[in-house]
């Protein structure tokens, strides 16, 4: 019986039941006998020195075991490199508890360890800390004169700096018949996955640790702990099978891991540290960014000049960067281009990648300026994008490995009913509301990283594949199982994927929308190697019909290896195991993207977002009543989990454009709304009709699977489409996100 391929099928998450019934254990859920609990104390000043921590005040409280601070910590390496994680930007990594300096508000400065969480928290409230406060600055807008180019480092390879200017932007813009420009303000945002950051560190004796960590990289956390505390990496095992959302916040080890590991090593006991919601606002975040655009075109709508400058916040110790200004020329083939990207170091913690970092920021400015340019030229915004369509990435002079953006435009516009739009702003109404249609393009790089995977044919003839990669809720477990199943022609319930454990084959951090491409490619390779080994064994079976067969001559179908030329003959996988004396057969492979092949192409996933808004102008109330996102992302392994990724991105787009902001008070250098009652993300009543289309796209170049990743693209095109729809509805161009109703009244 032939097995239908799993790839391309809308298979529900394999772990869905565990998650909805509460059986799934997250980092802070693992029960450990005799465990202690830590509660971290955060600085209440923004910059200065800690003079004294009055630990004696709380050490006598019942249940309190110790107070850990820079005054009594374990000895720590001074070398910055020891603290550098896989995602560390250029600069000096923040070293918790290193000395008495406070560098940002909310800096973790001490931890109470107690017999219960409640006791630890209670003691933390009573811990007095004396500070010597110093002057600080946290306001990007008021410190623009300190903007400087970012430092270059290892991380820069994944985040290229702006390309060199091309042509003569100044002259071209000056003489452009049609112009559009804007200043765009984006504020701070915090990831706020629902699962709080937690680490349960099990002390196994003899400086050996098993750690349940909330992370997007088990190996990243493992090496971080091993390097800092001088442990052998084999003595640190990090396990993280379920992650309750992360959105980038788990790309770097968070401070609870450092504290929990230190406490466990100091006390030689198991320790759990869970952050509370307000502490979730004390580490990485999307940085505030101010952008200026200046675009020019001919009267026919041909873009001739693209100018885009951005200034973003970073910390005083690391140069966190994003790709903000590189996108316009990747999409629009203008010959005169000026881009610039600078940073202002401020007294805050380092920003951190947050879903579609840079892309969602830069593309808002680009796509809203393009919209304005189209209006100024009197051309339909969709038509305007057709006029400036390019199959090559002129910013680097390379063709795209594939680019079905035109198909996204066509299918998205059709599904949405774009033709029903009347061109003039304020020309469409429904009841007492103005109605607006807006659209925008999305783009995100299609990346693949090196990774290892292992494939095992176990003694029962089942296929088991494994990787250290996490599943941050995106469906990695399901998708990897599908890929492996098809390699062996097995139904998915005969395949297991083991993951989320640093003991397993090396995987990179789970970000950048590269997991399916990266781990999927490695699994494909490992499966191929395993098939070769199996075949080799199969050939040695006495009277084997496969004795002269090569991999090309056989098919693996439903537990059998059959001759393609004569499908009725073959050998079963169980026979092979038997021949192998009942032992399993394993193969491990490292998959490395082929740089020579890839170098010839630009590789990107594209989307087209269409949005309808209704604006109640008397009261300034906006609703996104309908939205369609059409995506070209190569092979879609699982349309169900992929659709969920895009839907999540679309809801986040509503959040970004209309809801979400961390509000700073620069007099204190801190955020005033660090809780989910006041940090507004959309509720059900904000979400109306959302529709996702995946257009066919074939790509033989990106990777062996032809996949491009769908994690971020849903959040790139739709925020500007919302702003553009609001302009169409009201005639008001509002360039600061989130758009609140006071700006629309």
């Amino acid at each position, binding site marked *: 019986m032939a097995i239908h391929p799993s790839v391309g099928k809308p298979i529900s998450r394999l772990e869905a039941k565990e998650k909805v019934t509460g059986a799934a254990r997250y980092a802070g859920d693992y029960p450990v006998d005799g465990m202690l609990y830590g509660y971290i104390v955060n600085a209440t000043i923004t910059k200065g020195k800690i003079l004294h921590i009055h630990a004696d005040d709380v050490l006598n409280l019942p249940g309190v075991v110790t107070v850990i601070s820079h005054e009594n910590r374990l000895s720590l390496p001074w070398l910055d490199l020891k603290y550098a994680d896989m995602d560390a930007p250029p600069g000096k990594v923040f070293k918790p508890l290193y000395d008495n300096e406070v560098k940002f508000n909310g800096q973790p400065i001490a931890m109470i360890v107690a017999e219960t969480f409640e006791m630890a928290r209670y003691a933390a409230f009573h811990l007095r800390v004396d500070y010597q406060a110093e002057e600080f600055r946290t306001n990007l807008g008021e410190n623009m004169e300190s903007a400087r180019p970012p430092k270059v480092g290892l991380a820069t390879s994944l985040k290229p700096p702006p390309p060199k200017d091309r042509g003569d932007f100044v002259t071209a813009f000056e003489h452009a018949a049609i112009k559009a420009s804007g200043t765009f303000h984006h504020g701070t945002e915090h990831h706020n996955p629902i699962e709080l950051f937690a680490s349960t560190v099990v002390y196994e004796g003899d400086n050996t640790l098993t750690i349940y960590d909330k992370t997007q990289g088990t190996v990243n956390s493992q090496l971080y702990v091993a390097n800092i505390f001088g442990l052998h990496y084999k003595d640190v095992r990090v396990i993280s099978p379920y992650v309750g959302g992360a959105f980038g916040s788990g790309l770097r080890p968070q401070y609870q891991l450092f504290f929990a590991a230190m406490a466990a090593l100091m006390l030689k006991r198991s320790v759990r540290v869970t952050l509370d919601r307000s502490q979730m606002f004390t580490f990485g975040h999307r940085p505030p960014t101010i952008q200026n655009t200046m675009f020019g075109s001919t009267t026919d709508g041909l873009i001739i000049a693209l100018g885009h400058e951005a200034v973003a916040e970073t910390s005083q110790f690391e140069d966190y960067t994003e790709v903000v200004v590189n996108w316009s020329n990747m999409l629009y083939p203008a010959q005169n281009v000026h881009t610039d990207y600078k940073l202002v170091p401020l007294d805050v913690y380092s920003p951190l990648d947050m879903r579609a970092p840079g892309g969602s920021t830069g593309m808002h400015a680009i796509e809203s300026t393009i919209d304005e340019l189209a209006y100024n030229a009197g051309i339909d915004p969709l038509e305007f994008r057709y006029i400036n369509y390019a199959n090559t990435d002129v910013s680097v002079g390379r063709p795209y490995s594939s680019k079905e953006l035109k198909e996204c435009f066509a299918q998205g516009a059709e599904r949405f009913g774009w033709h029903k739009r009347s061109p003039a702003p304020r020309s469409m109404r429904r*009841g007492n509301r103005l109605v607006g249609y807006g659209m925008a393009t999305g783009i995100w790089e299609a990346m693949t990283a090196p990774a290892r995977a292992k494939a095992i044919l176990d003694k029962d003839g089942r296929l088991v594949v494994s990787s250290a990669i996490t599943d941050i809720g995106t469906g990695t477990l399901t998708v990897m199982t599908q890929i492996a199943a098809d390699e062996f022609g097995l139904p998915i319930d005969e395949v297991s994927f083991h993951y989320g454990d640093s003991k397993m084959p090396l995987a990179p951090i789970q970000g950048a929308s590269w997991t399916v491409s990266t781990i999927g490619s490695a699994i494909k390779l490992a499966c191929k190697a395993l098939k070769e080994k199996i075949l080799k064994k199969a050939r040695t079976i006495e009277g084997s019909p496969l004795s002269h067969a090569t991999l090309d001559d056989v098919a693996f179908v439903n537990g059998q290896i059959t001759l393609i030329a004569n499908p009725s003959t073959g050998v079963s996988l169980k026979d092979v195991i038997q021949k192998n004396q009942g032992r399993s057969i394993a193969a491990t492979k490292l998959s490395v993207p082929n740089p020579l092949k890839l170098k010839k192409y630009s590789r990107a996933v594209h989307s087209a977002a269409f949005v309808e808004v209704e604006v109640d102008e008397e009261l300034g109330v906006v609703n996104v009543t309908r939205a369609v996102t059409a995506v070209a992302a190569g092979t879609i392994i699982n349309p169900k989990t992929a659709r969920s990724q895009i839907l999540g991105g679309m809801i986040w787009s509503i959040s970004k454009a209309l*809801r979400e902001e961390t509000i700073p008070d620069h007099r204190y250098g*801190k955020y*005033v*709304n660090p809780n989910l009652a006041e940090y*507004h993300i*959309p509720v059900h*009543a904000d979400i109306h009709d959302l529709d996702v289309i995946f257009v066919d796209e074939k790509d033989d170049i990106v990777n062996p699977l032809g996949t491009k990743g769908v994690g971020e693209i849903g959040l790139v095109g739709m925020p500007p489409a919302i702003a553009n729809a609001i302009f169409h509805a009201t005639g008001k161009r509002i360039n600061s996100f989130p758009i609140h109703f006071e700006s629309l*009244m």
Partner: protein
Amino acid sequence: MNNFSYVKVGSVSEARALREGNDHARYLAGGTNLIDLMKYKLESAGTLIDIHHIDENRTISSTEQGGLWLGAFVSNADTAYHPLVEQRYPLLSRAILAGASPQIRNMATNGGNLLQRTRCYYFYDASSPCNKREPGSGCPAIQGYNRNMAILGTSRHCIAVFPSDMCVALAALDATVVTQGPYGERRIPFHDFHRLPGETPEIDNNLQIGEIIVGIELPPEGFPEYHSYLKLRDRNSFAFALVSVATGLTLDNGVIAVARIALGGVAHKPWRIAEAEQFLVGKEPTREAFAGAADIILAGAVGYGFNTFKIELAKRAIIRNGMMALNPASQRPGAQPSLEP
């Protein structure tokens, strides 16, 4: 959170007796506000007296005067969905359902709703100054991020807002708060219940220490024909009001006979101005008439920067809600604006 003792009581007198002379005791009803405040170390208690299960007067029932009794320990949800409330006081039902979330409304009680504390950001941050939390420490909101702060009845010591939705309707309905205290039963007219910040922003209302709310009484007039609650906020549900309006009208031959307009989200208490309501009497219910009333209500309004837009927004909301009240069927879940002109 510190260790505290927890006592579940079965009667008002038992609760009162435990509270008497025990400064460190607090009544616990639904706990949706008090427990949060304890977690944020803004409140601490030596004893929590759980009054949530008291059966006395735990009803919603008609009064002899033709009004309605709302027991203090009845949940917000049971109140909003009670047939007598839905039929006779739909304004109250809509206001309650515009607040919080279903889960919170299931826990929250009517008594607790009256006593919930402000949502001022600085009040909630124990490491920043705040006159309400620590009298004399200063008010960082006045020159700070004050988008959700008051525009009416503020003082130089505090510009906080009382955040309840339910109470805006109760103010419009002329409710009476019934309590048991050291001097026996008290009946407090709603407009005398909450206070303005003045010189003592730490005191939210006129309840005495240890006094317990046993119920709320509504007078017969519930404006079942013409009423509307409009809530403007940063998302369509589960957010506190930036401006809300409760409007109740009776009409006589097409002109206004009785008008009630109460504002939420703009002051330290639900805001009503008798003069504005009087202004409407005898007039046709038009946008112009409501605009005139709005001008009277907002006469003394002051903006502090981020919240200045609330003055114009409140005016527009009063007008719109006046028109919405004429057609209660135009109202939508969550007290969102109507979709018809």
